[in-house]
């Protein structure tokens, strides 16, 4: 538009006019990355003003502990979304992630009850989730839509969880899990330490290694990645396995936080994981899913949940708010994407 309305320029100056309009168009993009952070700050200020106990260190520690579960699982979903790309049919999504979270928490709890040591229980639990992820990945690579595969897997894993727990709450009292719940390292709650460790590893792997670059390449353009010599299928399968294992770790954290495994917890957590993953779009300049953004959005969701309940908002309204929030972010991203394409 700018180029057209400008007075007719000599042929030699046309490129500079074009670049000028391009920089003009790009300028708002750089500010876009700040939207998410601004919203978090506003959110904290609002809740701090509205509810006096909100800025209490103990409350903040609780919020971070709560966000750990969803953040770790959402890291996995982010990897799947990045490696799967934006394609409508093939696009990466893992709806079984909530169910896997519940399953691993339940499996570890059941194994602990049968007098197995914590290390062995963790090994079996996470190994089982890796297997689930492997099946997801293999079937997706065979050519079935990720949405269908993981929806079916959600049904399977939910069913398995009911079978192993007999549909009742499984309490745990293992020392290691108790430490995860109430212990700390240099004043930082143990769950937050786990979160930071996992975040460091995942952020390093996706941002600083060739595996991470290839993963993003596979999502952006699988054909080009294949031509460039990347094993596309291996990366896609790997993304589902990683997602399942991370969900498994999150499930163990969840079990330790509640001191028990609840059979229905997986389905409930799906919305928070999805929200944390897709809200991360608001923390990125290019409006894509990122790991750092996922961490911040998980904290955002935890603040929202805890702030609302401190204000006495009924829990059903929190669910509606979360759904509307996902839609808002997706709508902004979709509109933005359209204007870029033009």
């Amino acid at each position, binding site marked *: 538009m700018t180029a057209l309305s400008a007075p007719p320029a000599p042929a030699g100056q046309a490129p500079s006019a074009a670049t000028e309009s391009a920089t003009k168009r790009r300028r708002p993009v750089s500010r876009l990355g700040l939207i998410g952070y601004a919203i978090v700050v506003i959110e904290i200020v609002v809740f701090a003003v509205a509810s006096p106990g909100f800025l209490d260190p103990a409350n903040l520690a609780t919020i971070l502990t709560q966000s750990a579960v969803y953040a770790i699982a959402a890291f996995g979903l982010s990897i799947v979304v990045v490696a799967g790309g934006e394609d409508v049919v093939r696009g990466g999504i893992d709806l079984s992630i909530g169910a896997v979270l519940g399953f691993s928490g339940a499996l570890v709890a059941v194994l602990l009850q049968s007098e197995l040591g914590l290390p062995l229980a963790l090994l079996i639990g996470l190994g089982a989730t890796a297997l689930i992820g492997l099946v997801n990945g293999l079937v997706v690579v065979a050519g079935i839509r990720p*949405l269908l595969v993981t*929806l079916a897997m959600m*049904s399977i894993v939910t069913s398995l969880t009911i*079978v192993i727990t007999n549909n009742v709450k499984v309490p745990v009292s293992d020392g290691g899990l108790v430490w995860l719940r109430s212990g700390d390292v240099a004043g930082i709650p143990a769950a937050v330490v786990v979160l930071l460790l996992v975040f460091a590893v995942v952020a390093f792997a996706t941002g600083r290694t060739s595996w991470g670059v290839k993963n993003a390449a596979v999502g952006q353009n699988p054909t080009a990645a294949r031509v460039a010599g990347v094993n596309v299928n291996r990366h896609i399968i790997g993304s589902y396995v990683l997602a399942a294992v991370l969900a498994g770790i999150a499930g163990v954290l969840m079990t330790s936080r509640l001191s028990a495994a609840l059979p229905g917890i997986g389905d409930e957590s799906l919305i928070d994981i999805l929200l944390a993953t897709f809200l991360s779009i608001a923390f990125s300049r290019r409006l894509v899913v990122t790991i750092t953004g996922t961490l911040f959005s998980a904290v955002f969701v935890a603040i929202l949940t805890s702030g609302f309940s401190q204000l006495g908002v009924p829990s059903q309204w929190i669910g509606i708010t979360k759904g509307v929030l*996902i839609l808002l972010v997706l709508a902004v991203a979709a509109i933005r994407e359209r204007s870029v394409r033009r």
Partner: protein
Amino acid sequence: MSLDTTAGAKPASSPAAGASGARSGGTGTGGGRGQGTGPGGPLSTLTVRGLGAAVPQALAPAVLAVLLIVFAVLSPSFLTAGNLLGVLNQNALLLLAAVAMTVVVRAGGIDLSIGVAIDLAALTASALLADDYVAWVAIVGALLVGLLVGAVNAFLIVVLRIRPFLATLSVWFIGGGVQQVATDGGSPIYLSRGSVPDEFAWLGAGSVLGVATPIVIAVLVLLIVWAALERSRWGRVLTAAGEQPTATRIAGRMAGTSMATAFVFAAGIAAIAGIILAARSNGFVANSGQLYVLDSIGAVFIGTTLSRTGRPNLFGTLVGVLIFALLTNGMNLVGLSFYWQGLARGVVLILILLLGVLLARDRSRKPLT
């Protein structure tokens, strides 16, 4: 659609993978459900493999036949007219949901919020009847609420251009919250027998010429939708827009509009299911429509394996619904705990889809080599 993208993905190893997949899948369908007892096991495995290798389109009907045979052997009361009619009656709602899903998938979308349309329609009908409105007001109100859900979906997907599954997933979450708010935290609405008008109760429990009303309604809707999809201009544009959106737009057809109408139409059908649900259960229980989401999506995509081009079609959807229906009923008759039923449904869905893809890939490869 998805076949093309992955057929080229691993050119070297796929025939081997296809063969091994078909083998393990074949034994899985026979052994998993037959438990290897009696002559049903090996015989059914042969049927699946023989027919399936010949034509991938025969896969789903073959599975249906296998289910009929296996459960007929395992449970003597399975193959009785009473039981089979009962199965149809129980699954009339699933059929309606799956027909709605077929329309959406045909248009190139997916609707995870189908359960919300069912639930909110059932909620509206129950709430209106509980307030002593007459039957037709409740029915019209429920239909309008259902259509509203579809309109919200259409707005999100066509106007805001959010990807269908993300948009409808959000609507699913929001719809769950709305139900909780409307029922004060999920407390069910019960209608006492006296307060339900006879004509409304007839929708759930009555019969036409000896056939239960839900079956009659579901079959009528199926026929109407079939005519709309296969014999009308709307259906042709919708199908074209679903398979080739860009080409359809260039050809001057309104791809966006047909997508929007598909979502509204589907939500309307789901609302009919919701009304029958309310009539049958004499009230409303929160989130009872969610049960139909996975099964209806599964039925539609099982149905696509019946089409040579992978197009969602109503006959295939019917076969898919019958597979899920017989599976559930058979498992109940055999005495399998509901704990295992989600597992069995998910496994059967994945296996059928996987076999369909692998068989189709082997076939499409043969002329080339």
